[in-house]
């Protein structure tokens, strides 16, 4: 850690960036994360001691940085990553949360989970192998989940003699596929995670590369635009009624703003009732605010005494969300029990819960060829499909592309209570 700067008040002005990493088994993903943590001095001595000890037990001479990212006993025994693991590090500019997800095909659900909250996706490519099927699969998932920024790390440059020509070749090949993905911002960096080239420190082996190092990019990439500040959305989580002498008649609506900006005095509408009212105050412990924006957690009081409860959503009168009982979505399936055509599920959207029935499966995505499969419509674990559900009550939503929070939902099995799949509203 960069002690002096972190400890000073500057630390109180840092931003938070969440990123996810995807790569196939031998792309050096764990090594890259280990390298980022190690070179940014975010690994502690006892952790280094522990992995040195574990590496020796496995008969390795040098500390295996990849071991840093294995959490569970079964993972260390089998040498594979089973579940998403979260890692943390900070530089004077930003705090980083890494969702480290396993790359194998059977773990698509973990990649989707890690990607759901990320600002940036790191896609790893082995410079020797170039773009392979898995690269496309990872990129497709990143674009499906609408991760705003993609960083393609062309790794193991040391094994292709740090060749600029090879880097350009891989980059060009990748860009041929890029139109298939809906990603606004793509970067390419030649690195060697093993030796640290262009990860934290600039490579002395690749003079030809004029771009930034990976950490530099992560520290400076513009993320303020990643949150929706256009469409005011405030799903009600909880109603606050203190019933004390001081706040006898207080009735506040607690929630986290999912989009846009709310100001005291704004004309707002409550969905689904459609009642119009006005914001009287925006309260937090310690201070009342004049305005609040996503993703702040606040408590809002309104002028009129109307019936509002959890699951309702407060919006601006002149900017209302879409409303429908027929929802079309891209669905990722998580459970070993397949999606049932005509099956009934509990749908959780925001703070709202409704029942739904699966009406149609339009197609299944072949995530290796990126083709739509309209023949086989059996949606099994780790499959991605376009489906249509009919809900028991209307949903108030935005398209996922416009707002990741008001455009997403999960399906829950009402008997087992398991989370069966995640949907992104088209």
């Amino acid at each position, binding site marked *: 850690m960069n002690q002096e700067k972190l400890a000073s008040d500057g630390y109180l002005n840092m931003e938070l960036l969440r990123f996810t990493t995807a790569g196939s088994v031998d792309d050096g993903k764990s090594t890259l994360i280990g390298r980022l943590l190690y070179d940014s001095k975010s690994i502690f001595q006892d952790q280094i001691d522990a992995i040195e000890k574990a590496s020796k037990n496995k008969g390795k001479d040098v500390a295996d940085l990849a071991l840093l990212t294995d*959490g569970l006993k079964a993972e260390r025994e089998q040498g594979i990553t089973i579940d998403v693991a979260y890692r943390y590090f900070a530089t004077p500019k930003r705090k980083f949360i890494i969702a480290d997800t396993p790359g194998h095909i059977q773990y698509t659900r973990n990649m989707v989970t890690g990607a759901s909250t990320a600002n940036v996706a790191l896609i790893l490519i082995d410079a020797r192998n170039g773009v392979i099927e898995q690269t496309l699969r990872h990129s497709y998932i990143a674009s499906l989940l609408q991760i705003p920024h993609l960083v393609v790390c062309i790794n193991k440059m040391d094994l292709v003699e740090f060749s600029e020509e090879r880097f350009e070749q891989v980059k060009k090949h990748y860009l041929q596929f890029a139109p298939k993905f809906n990603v606004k911002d793509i970067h390419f960096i030649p690195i060697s995670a093993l030796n640290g080239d262009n990860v934290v420190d600039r490579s002395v082996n690749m003079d030809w590369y004029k771009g930034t190092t990976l950490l530099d990019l992560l520290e400076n990439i513009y993320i303020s635009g990643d949150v929706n500040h256009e469409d005011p959305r405030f799903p009600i989580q909880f109603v606050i009624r203190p019933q004390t002498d001081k706040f006898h008649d207080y009735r506040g609506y607690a929630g986290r703003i999912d989009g846009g900006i709310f100001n005291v005095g704004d004309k707002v509408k409550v969905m689904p009732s459609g009642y119009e009212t006005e914001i009287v105050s925006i309260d937090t412990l310690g201070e009342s605010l004049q305005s609040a924006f996503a993703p702040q957690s606040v408590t809002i009081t309104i002028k009129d005494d109307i019936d509002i409860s959890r699951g309702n959503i407060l919006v601006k009168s002149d900017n209302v969300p879409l409303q429908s009982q027929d929802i079309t979505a891209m669905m990722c399936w998580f459970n070993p029990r397949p999606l049932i055509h005509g099956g009934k599920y509990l749908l959780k959207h925001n703070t709202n819960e409704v029942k739904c029935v699966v009406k149609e499966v339009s197609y299944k995505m072949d995530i290796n060829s990126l083709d739509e499969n309209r023949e086989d419509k059996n949606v099994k674990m780790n499959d991605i499909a376009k489906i249509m559900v009919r809900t028991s009550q209307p949903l108030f939503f935005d398209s996922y592309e416009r707002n990741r929070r008001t455009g997403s939902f999960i399906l*829950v099995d009402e008997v087992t209570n*398991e989370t069966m799949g995640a949907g992104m509203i088209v």
Partner: protein
Amino acid sequence: MKPFNLTHLKELESESIFIFREVAAQFQNPVILFSGGKDSIVMFHLARKAFYPARVPIPLLHIDTGHNFEETIDFRDNLVHKNGVKLYIGSVQKTIDEGKVLEETGFNASRNVLQTTTLLDAIETHKFDCAVGGGRRDEEKARAKERFFSHRDEFGQWDPKNQRPELWNLFNGRKKMGEHFRVFPLSNWTELDVWQYIFMENIEIPSLYYTHRRECFLRDGVLLATAPFMQLKPTEKMEVLDVRCRTIGDITNTGLTQSKADNLKDIIDEIAAERTTERGMRFDDKRSETAMEDRKKEGYF
């Protein structure tokens, strides 16, 4: 900071408040696990923010090993009194007296593992359906795999290989009778975040975190406080030193740091320069490489 942009501490705060409100909305009878350590204090502060101007509608549960620092208990009682919340106490001594667990013996005897039985007992007795804990993913490798909403079966066990996927801001707290959830609002916080937040919000913490003079002794590289129930080996020597706690557990496994830091800024400087993790200071984690995972599977915090 640009307009319409949160600092990382404000964003973490907002996320934790969201979690607390989900707990209040999704569970019938939740409880906050309160140890009197800094993480549980920050957690309670966030709970106050989540429900202001109402009182925190969730009671506290302290699993009391009986091997406490006196300062922690005073602090706890004061906080409970000031905020008008209900406090439940689960006593490890009582669990031992009832013959449900056997107390460890020997020099490194600790009641750490025994706490699990007391905790699960308390959850069952009071029919809590959700226990909110201060665990952070940066603490330990098994914790790095933990969900915000972590499902426990009717035996209180954690199945790390079969966890519910958690996406966006959608937390599935549905369960069957007899099962419960553990919820971790501080999942995404690091040790430094917690300290910076205490500083930013000016949160009161027990005096143990600041420098004070105390009788201690060195065991296996960890500086421990003396107490009537701690036996010194013949080779161990009692010393009086200026120390502070970096983390507070029960006396038998809380390592002390030699320090003269008497204010938060100095403490933060020390933490930022620290080269070992805070759990590296805990005796309970030194038992084996998977000590935490093993305990967590059984139902530990």
